């Protein structure tokens, strides 16, 4: 057999040059430690969006003109009563000035009471009078404040720049894509830090509170939360070490698999940094996963070695033997993990692709550290004195082996079928997208989400807006038909449940038209007269974001109540309906920019990716099983429990109100990829025994003796590792933690119960 002879050759050469192998690994590790120390947290807005999605093409095309979706909103609030006092205006001015001078802020679009573009216009007998809302000679005394108050009312900015109840005022800014001085990509995390240090910290005192929201601040908070992961990492290492020690009863056999797994983590980080990648806060959990997977394979290794040594072999011979028996199932298992992660590349969202690369790299590395380095290092030790008495567990295994007998097997399969049917039925309710208000990555009680709730509560605007882009001909904004069409669209959308308000050039032109007629609201219409429209238009600069310079592109901005998946879905589908009805030879409506446009595209991308991803993952798993077992029956026994467990995981998601998102979609692939390990380890022994002529029941019992405790232990170890995420500051990590814990534990149980039950019927007639 050529595979076997290849393995022979590797085995011989590796163990003959043990010193060399260890030295090589040490050298590589030193280099990669250095590389890993250079790794940076890296978060960019564009990584989070499916750039090739139709909506995002519209978004990118017009981003330059309309500022895109990367905004910062800072609400300065006074705790007692209203904003009309000196303390407040001093703070607001301070915040405005600070924000204005932060590099990366688009200075032409900083908007607040203090920006010169915030003007009021009032009608007087002979026309208009107007000026900046806060006059140049403003002093925060009684008279000055009264003037500002009446100007605010005239300017009609309540709900946008000033809170509905006058308790807060807003400073808004759009961020540039690149740093203005260095020309490098804007560092979101550094900017978030600046916002916290230079804008929030100095001004939030006394009665003043400062509330900051926007993508940049959000990733900043996510990154801060992600740093808490280090603690979990340490906790996971400690717990895992204790577990391994309980399993191996040997300090050396505890330290080595842990150390080798840590080497895998270091390699992964080093390689990432060498390849020019950063670590995104969204994928910061991957090192965890790599560690946990590493340990689980390490445990298989020490388990195998320990058993051999107990049979009286020398440590070196045991290590060598274990290496050769485990290399095939190990590589198959790890490769299916890797392939599982690689399938995530099919999703056209930068951050998921990065996760795919990060994770597959990490798992591939384990092949070297835990399947190769670990036995080589162990072979230097003498573990014979650490013989364990496994008599008791062996008895337990004998009981469990009955699962492969027809009676218990029938019962197991019946329960499985019932669970599967229930799960399958329930998982149809699985929702795509975010199901909760606020920033989904963070907990509801986090400062960021509290700030978001405050702002959406006190202002008429929200961060959950979607811009539908109207593309038409040059100078179309003085064409009443174009504006009428936009207005009709806007009105239809305003009537959709979940749309709180909307604004577009059309609605603003109406207000201005009434302004030209003394503020008489009977004139609040889109004037049919081109000259009247041109006159009204002269009041609306393109910096308002309502039109471009050529007047050929205009957004209709829809403010939504929230960004729950069903809200977005409803608004998008109604928008599509309205567009189909209203698109004509002059006007083309295009979905969609703004944060909700991004989410809608992401949701659609996730939904589209779901099926192909599952097909690829299962395809890869099936293929690898066929190759390593060369048996259809074995493949079925491994894959069916996996599929049942993924279905149950989807059921769990609907029960726990977890939506299918950029962060939970990968979990399904990861869960299948890792879940398959158990089945592969069990079956690899079983199929050897079956080939040797054992009855199924006996073969399974043997497999349990040999691998059962390792499988059980592995499932628990992995589950403990990821369950520490329950305590994360980040909501998506909690979600991922729950799902992965479930996947690891239940897959392990399924491999020990459902797998033999299925096998019982597949190998029924075998004598």
């Amino acid at each position, binding site marked *: 057999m050529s595979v076997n002879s290849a393995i022979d050759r590797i085995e011989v050469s590796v163990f003959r040059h043990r010193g060399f192998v260890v030295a090589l690994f040490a050298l590589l590790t030193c280099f990669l430690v250095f590389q890993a120390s250079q790794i940076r947290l890296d978060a960019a807005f564009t990584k989070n969006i499916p750039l090739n999605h139709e909506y995002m093409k519209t978004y990118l095309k017009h981003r330059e003109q309309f500022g895109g979706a990367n905004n910062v909103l800072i609400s300065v609030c006074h705790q007692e009563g209203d904003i009309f006092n000196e303390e407040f205006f001093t703070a607001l001015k301070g915040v405005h000035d600070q924000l204005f001078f932060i590099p990366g802020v688009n200075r032409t679009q900083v908007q607040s009471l203090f920006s010169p573009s915030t003007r009021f216009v*009032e*009608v*007087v*007998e002979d026309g208009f009078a107007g000026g900046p809302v806060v006059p140049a000679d403003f002093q925060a005394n009684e008279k000055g404040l009264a003037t500002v108050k009446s100007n605010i009312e005239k300017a009609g900015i309540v709900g946008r720049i000033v809170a509905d109840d006058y308790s807060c005022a807003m400073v808004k800014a759009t961020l540039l894509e690149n740093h203005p001085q260095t020309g490098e990509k804007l560092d979101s995390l550094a900017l978030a830090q600046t916002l916290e240090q230079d804008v929030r910290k100095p001004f939030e005192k006394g009665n003043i509170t400062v509330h900051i929201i926007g993508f940049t601040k959000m990733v900043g908070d996510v990154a801060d939360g992600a740093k808490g992961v280090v603690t979990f990492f340490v906790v996971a290492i400690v717990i895992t070490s204790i577990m391994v020690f309980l399993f191996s009863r040997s300090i050396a056999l505890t330290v080595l698999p842990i150390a080798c797994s840590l080497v895998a983590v270091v390699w992964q980080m080093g390689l990432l940094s060498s390849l020019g990648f950063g670590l995104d806060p969204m994928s910061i959990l991957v090192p965890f996963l790599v560690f946990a997977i590493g340990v689980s394979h390490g445990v298989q290794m020490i388990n195998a070695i320990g058993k051999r040594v107990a049979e009286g072999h020398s440590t070196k011979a045991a290590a060598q033997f274990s290496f050769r028996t485990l290399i095939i199932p190990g590589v198959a298992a790890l490769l299916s993990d890797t392939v599982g992660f690689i399938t995530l590349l099919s999703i056209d969202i930068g951050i998921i692709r990065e996760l795919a690369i990060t994770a597959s790299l990490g798992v591939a590395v384990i092949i070297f550290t835990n399947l190769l380095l670990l036995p080589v290092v162990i072979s230097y030790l003498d573990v014979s004195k650490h013989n364990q008495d496994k008599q008791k567990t062996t008895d337990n295994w004998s009981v469990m082996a009955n699962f492969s007998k027809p009676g218990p097997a029938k019962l197991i399969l019946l329960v499985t079928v019932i669970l599967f049917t229930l799960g399958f039925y329930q998982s149809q309710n699985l929702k795509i997208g975010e199901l909760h208000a606020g920033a989904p990555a963070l907990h509801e009680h986090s400062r960021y989400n509290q700030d978001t709730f405050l702002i959406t509560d006190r202002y008429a605007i929200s961060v959950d807006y979607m811009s539908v882009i109207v593309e038409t001909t040059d100078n179309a904004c003085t064409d009443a038909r174009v504006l009428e069409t936009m207005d009709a669209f806007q009105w239809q959308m*305003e009537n959709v449940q979940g749309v709180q308000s909307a604004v577009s050039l059309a609605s603003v032109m109406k207000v201005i038209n009434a302004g030209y007629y003394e503020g008489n*609201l009977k004139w609040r*219409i889109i*004037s*049919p007269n*081109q000259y009247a429209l041109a006159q009204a238009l002269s009041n609306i600069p393109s910096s308002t974001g309502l039109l471009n310079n050529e007047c050929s592109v205009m957004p209709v901005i829809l403010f939504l109540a929230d960004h729950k998946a069903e809200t977005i879905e409803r608004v998008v589908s109604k928008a599509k309906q309205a567009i189909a009805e209203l698109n004509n030879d002059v006007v083309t409506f295009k979905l969609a920019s703004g944060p909700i446009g991004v989410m809608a595209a992401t949701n659609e991308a996730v939904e589209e990716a779901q099926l192909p991803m599952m097909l690829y993952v299962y395809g890869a798993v099936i293929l690898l099983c066929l190759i390593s077992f060369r048996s259809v029956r074995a493949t079925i026994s491994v894959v069916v429990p996996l599929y049942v467990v993924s279905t149950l995981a989807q059921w769990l998601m609907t029960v726990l109100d977890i939506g299918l998102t950029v962060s939970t979609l990968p979990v399904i692939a990861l869960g299948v990829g890792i879940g398959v390990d158990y089945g592969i380890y069990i079956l690899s022994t079983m199929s050897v025994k079956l080939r040797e002529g054992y009855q199924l029941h006996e073969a399974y019992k043997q497999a349990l003796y040999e691998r059962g405790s390792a499988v059980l232990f592995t499932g628990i170890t992995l589950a403990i590792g990821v369950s520490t995420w329950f305590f994360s500051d980040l909501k998506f990590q909690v979600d991922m933690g729950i799902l992965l814990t479930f996947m690891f534990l239940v897959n392990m149980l399924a491999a020990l119960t459902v797998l033999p039950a299925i096998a019982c019927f597949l190998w029924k007639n075998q004598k």
Partner: protein
Amino acid sequence: MRIILLVLLFFSLSSQANEAPKPSISSKLSIKSMLLDIENVNDEFVIAVGSRGHILKINSKEQWQQMQSPVQSTLTAVDFVSATHGWAVGHDSVILHTSDGGITWQIQQYLPEQQKPLMDVAFKNKEEGIAIGAYGLFYRTTDGGNTWQREYHTSLLLEEDKQYLEELKREDEQAYLEERASILPHFNRIILDGVTTYMVGELGLIAKSNDFGKSWQRFEEIYHGSFYDLARTKQGNLIAVGLRGNSFRSVENGAPWQPVETGVTALLNNIIQSSTEQIFVLGNNGTLLISDDDGQTYQLVSQEDGKALLSGTEFKGQLFVASEVGLKVLQVIK
């Protein structure tokens, strides 16, 4: 006739196409979108009209329903002469008629190419009515709106404009016609007061007619801004309100007028007199002025949202208001 032809010629050059009117869309937000006029019809129901051709009917239980309206043009005014017969007017010089208490409406006039809105409508009885609007738009019917005739009232011109027009007529006939078509002020409201008819509008216009608008007599100018409403109080005095919080009162039937301090600078839209002899003045920026002394002094009760109040009517002891943000029911009547 030539004027209309000229107007037609001018606008056929512009891109505006003359399309058939589209019926108004029924939507649940119509109760919250801008309403411009509201009327209590025989204490049986309330009719309100507003943006996008919306016509709403509110029954005595305060339940509202959107009626089928044949146009999407913004409607600016509504007037009923009985529980069944009513008219609504608005932009695109549209005139709608109902003879079943507002359930169905028929188009009597629709002239979008004219690009002039009607601002108010008043009917003396089921047959005779007047519709007025921007740039001196003036229509009359004597057959319940089956036919509407346009009228031009030179008597409503300012003296200097009359002279100017006469000079222009001698020099340039063409320019004269163009100028004549747009020189009249905007007519904002027409008020029936027994045998007397009042009309107020732009450029300080207050005019009076004793023959239901066939001949007009302009009052002396007391203010050069626009007037939006006029009313005769229960005590027989006149009140006029207009731009920038201006309010005037006359105890001698039109002369002399005394300015009344309102304390606001918002545009004042409408005067309502309650059965309890209170006077309410509605205005922009959430202005609600209440007078308990026949309009001599006012107390300001600002609406917190600052949204314009356009028109009001007393119904079931409450003030029903057509506002910028739809229907409001205010508990301000004693």
